[in-house]
């Protein structure tokens, strides 16, 4: 049911784009107004959410300690799994962000005959997630060829590497296949496993259907239905140079692609896709375990008036002397 709701949303968006592509005024809205609005919502939404996160105080270090803490010099510590320096944290975060290290530890549990509970490693989700995210990055970098003129070297390099197998004309990009296969796997996993289907919400399916729609329409345009790439770049460059214009001869499928991308961008700051920024702000990963090495002041502590022993002695020194009590400083 949840999956169906999301599928209907994507189908409605597709229908809107197909209907709007035909007439010039509605194509102008779909090709220029909607992408600008989506980009604005995307940027502002992310900035506002991250600023809200940035205001949170960090009173104490709460990293997940997955290894031996740094202590005495002869106790071997685990610098990646229990970092106590900024460098260690940077390495831990890099592995987390670039290699999804936490997900690599994914396990599954099963009840076998006996009854006997067994645990086993489960790398499929990690493999699917890695393929999906890296393919998506390659796809985004490749698409910069439409938004930049002259096409800069890193983008040309990405295009070359992605199509290095030189299969087909135009070349089939590895990331197209990777994205489609991995997103398909991530969807199939939610639909086929009863436990996962039970906990999956419409908000879990919507990004998957959107991305599958985007990848599908992109591959269709590149390899099957074909379109005037020069006109598409003219449109994209119009957006980049802030001199938007709508060239003639762009097919309906392109507007479907563009509206789904715009929807994904505008939806991102309000959805679980904000893990894009959130992954960098995971306190259990991005804090050094140095609670015992440094003093961490709690920013919301009210100022406390204290009366130290020195001040106490200063106040009562003569009386204490008279009573014969031991003193730290003798009166002059």
């Amino acid at each position, binding site marked *: 049911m949840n999956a169906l709701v999301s599928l209907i949303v994507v189908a409605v968006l597709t229908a809107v784009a197909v209907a709007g592509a035909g007439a010039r005024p509605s194509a102008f809205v779909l090709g220029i107004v909607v992408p600008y609005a989506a980009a604005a919502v995307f*940027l502002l939404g992310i900035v506002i959410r991250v600023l809200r996160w940035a205001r949170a*105080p960090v009173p104490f270090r709460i990293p997940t300690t997955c290894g031996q803490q740094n202590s005495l010099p002869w106790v071997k510590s685990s610098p990646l799994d229990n970092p106590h320096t900024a460098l260690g944290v940077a390495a831990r975060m890099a592995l987390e962000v670039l290699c999804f290290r936490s997900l690599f530890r994914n396990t599954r549990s099963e009840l076998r005959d006996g009854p006997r509970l067994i645990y086993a490693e489960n790398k499929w989700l990690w493999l699917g997630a890695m393929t999906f995210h890296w393919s998506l990055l390659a796809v985004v970098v490749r698409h910069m060829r439409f938004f*930049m003129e*002259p*096409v800069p070297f890193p983008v040309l390099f990405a295009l070359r590497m992605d199509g290095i197998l030189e299969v087909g004309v135009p070349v089939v990009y590895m990331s197209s296949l990777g994205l489609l296969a991995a997103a398909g796997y991530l969807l199939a996993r939610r639909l086929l496993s009863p436990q996962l289907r039970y906990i999956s919400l419409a908000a879990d399916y919507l990004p998957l259907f959107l991305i599958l729609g985007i990848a599908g329409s992109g591959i269709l345009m590149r390899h099957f239905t074909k379109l005037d*790439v*020069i*006109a598409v770049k003219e449109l994209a460059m119009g957006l980049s140079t802030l001199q938007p214009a709508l060239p003639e*001869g762009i097919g309906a499928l392109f507007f479907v692609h563009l509206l789904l991308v715009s929807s994904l961008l505008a939806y991102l700051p309000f959805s679980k896709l904000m893990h894009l920024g959130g992954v960098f702000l995971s306190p259990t990963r991005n804090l050094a375990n140095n609670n015992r090495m440094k003093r961490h002041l709690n920013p919301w502590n009210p100022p406390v008036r204290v009366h130290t022993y020195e001040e106490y002695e200063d106040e009562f020194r003569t009386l204490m002397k008279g009573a014969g009590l031991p003193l730290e400083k003798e009166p002059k």
Partner: protein
Amino acid sequence: MHDTGKILAGLAVFLALATSPLWYASLARSSAAAPRLDLPAAERRCVLPREVIRASHMQLLDEWRTQVVRDGQRDYVTPDGRRFDKSLTRTCLKCHSNEKNFCSRCHDYAGAKPVCWNCHVKPEDIK
């Protein structure tokens, strides 16, 4: 303690990357206009209609290559009955005799790197 400073630095990097098309376009003084092509003066009709040839010329050339190299079949008849030799050098480049002012203009604009010139000699290099 707050980590606001570090978070703001990260946010600035994100914004710089996310708005890269805008500042790149203004730094590189890009124009939004599509490239202008040197069209052949003598011949106004290509082997297929303009929209088709624009979108699918690479597939046509790929088919031609396979048919010529593997099957030795060189005869191409257009849907409207004109006959051509299936040859990049002798048919396409006969009219489009300047690679730099025709092929490259769009390919560079779109970031496409055709593999034609791995084997073929560009017409302007012959002279």
